[in-house]
């Protein structure tokens, strides 16, 4: 029996974490793996393309109503049986989203018995590591592999570099870098070089394809809506890489000057 793989995907806001996470989840489900995706972003959009464009109630929405939350309230089955969970979050500017992740994940762990049966659990973590709550899945021992998603632009790389600092701080190794292309000049080279210099490796280069956006707009993953497209193949390859990846290293963060040199 394979060990349960529990991964967290970090990266700058808007870089495509949810899109990548849901497509990887779909690709793994296609392979017969039992998959759960836990969206930790207040936008609660990690699972939307696995559910035909439907939003599910978030754990925090239900907790806010002081309901006695059960597994069926918060775990919803999507494409090929992928179990979808959304943490949700407070209203913008109120409360602490980080603390919300902690509370929601504690609740999930308490009421969700099926979580132990999964082959792969994907934590789609919001934006950057901006506070203690955002690293809760790792700190609470719920994640055994961390990935960073970036493009070849300066700001996403800056965020990725910062996340490396966060991982060092919480003594967590990095399992790889994924590049979600924004069609920047020399992009694959830049991200590859960055990956090497921080001591990690580039796991996949996902080309910028309009089909990804089109499928998303329709409320589907590429794997479901356009399974024969080349980018679907890239996601399949990435899913395979993740499921077989056992290596991880403690990253070293780069100086800002070096980051700038890389992207010039």
């Amino acid at each position, binding site marked *: 029996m394979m060990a349960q793989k529990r991964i967290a995907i970090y990266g700058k806001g808007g870089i495509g974490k949810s899109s990548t996470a849901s497509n990887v989840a779909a690709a793994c489900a296609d392979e017969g793996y039992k998959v759960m995706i836990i969206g930790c972003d207040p936008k609660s959009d990690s699972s939307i393309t696995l559910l035909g464009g439907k939003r599910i109630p978030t754990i925090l929405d239900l907790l806010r109503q002081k309901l006695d939350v059960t597994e069926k309230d918060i775990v919803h089955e999507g494409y090929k049986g992928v179990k979808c969970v959304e943490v949700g979050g407070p209203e913008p500017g109120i409360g*602490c989203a*980080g*603390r919300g992740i*902690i509370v929601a994940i504690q609740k999930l762990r308490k009421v969700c018995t099926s979580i132990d049966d999964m082959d792969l659990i994907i934590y789609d973590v919001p934006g950057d590591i901006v*506070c*203690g*709550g955002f*690293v*809760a899945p790792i*700190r609470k021992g719920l994640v055994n592999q961390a990935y960073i998603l970036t493009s070849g632009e300066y700001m996403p790389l800056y965020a990725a570099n910062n996340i490396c600092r966060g991982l060092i701080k919480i003594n967590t190794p990095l399992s790889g870098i994924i590049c979600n292309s924004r069609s920047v000049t020399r992009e694959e080279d830049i991200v590859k070089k960055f990956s090497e210099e921080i001591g990690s490796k580039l796991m996949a280069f996902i080309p910028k394809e309009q089909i990804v956006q089109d499928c998303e707009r329709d409320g589907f993953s590429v794997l479901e809506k356009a399974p024969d497209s080349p980018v679907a193949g890239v996601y399949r390859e990435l899913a395979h890489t993740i499921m077989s990846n056992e290596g991880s290293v403690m990253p070293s963060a780069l100086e800002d000057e070096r980051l700038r040199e890389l992207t010039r």
Partner: protein
Amino acid sequence: MAENDISIIHPRPSSIVAALYTLRDLNVDVAILHGPPGCSFKHARLLEEDGIHVVTTALDENGFVFGGRDELSSLLTKVNEMFNPKLIGVVGTCASMIIGEELREPVQDANLDVPVIEVEVHAGYPNNTKGVLIALESACDAGIIDPEELGRQKILLEEATNVEKRHGAASREYLTPSRGDLKYKVAEKVIDYLKEGKRCLTIMNAKKETGYMFADITVAINEVASQLGMEDNVINMANVDDTLGLPRVRHHAKSIMDDFTEKGITIHENIGGMDEYPITGEKVSGLITEKYSDFDFAVITGVPHAIPMDNLQEMEVISVTNGPRQVIPLKEMGHENVIVEIDLHPKTLGVNNIVESEFGATIREVAKDMLERNSEAV
């Protein structure tokens, strides 16, 4: 709205404070509050009277934003040097828990050769017993108590919560605090009843260290009964089993029982441990049915609302509590008189012997006056 969903709006003890008291019962030498300097300050200082050091990481706004791992770690090192403790407790606060502070990592950073119980708790739980529970689970994880004791404590906590919801401070949305009945009037009544040869049950059902003061009422009633030659009319029940509970709780039971013995007070019925106040009611009821159903009045001290009224209906019930919000529920239960021992807690922390209660002192003084008047009349 369901009975248990009452939104209680009067202030009440917090889970953080409950966790601190539990650490005290586990005999920690130092408790560190990881949070702002003012958190739980009144009880923190009170607990220092009870022989443990309570200190704070004094997190400020900077700490809320950037975390307080280093502050906690360095404070652990500092208290270890200052106090040479054998056991340390670290307690979370609302602030540190909201910002997602981990307690384990700073403890590991400090790398002390002393066991540390980490209690990740805030005050946002409806029942403050949650703080006790988290502290006990952490103590069990740290090997300070065994799973069997943890299981026992869980049962007691659940029942303590139920008792408060049924007839206690959590029984309604708002309870007006009250000083209760005048002590000298009730004292006169008790003495008159004893003089008349009425049969009296004293039932001390005290919560842990509060027993040091409630026991004095048992002593005072027995002293007066003895002066009146009516000692055989008094039967004493008390929860002073020293084989049950956390280390400090067992110590309290032994100290109080030793004092009873030294004062010549017979405890006819030992009704349980000093942490068993929520579950003694059934035992007391059983004993009354079996042996004492023809008694005329009962003086119940400590947590009187945990004793069901089923078998007390035929007796006049006088109760003594230390909770000003307990007066109304007790009156509604059918207790004719309810007395409040104000400031009981500050006077019972840090002591190892029975301390004088206001009601006990009043009984003694009123009895002295009454007996003097009687002898002058003769």
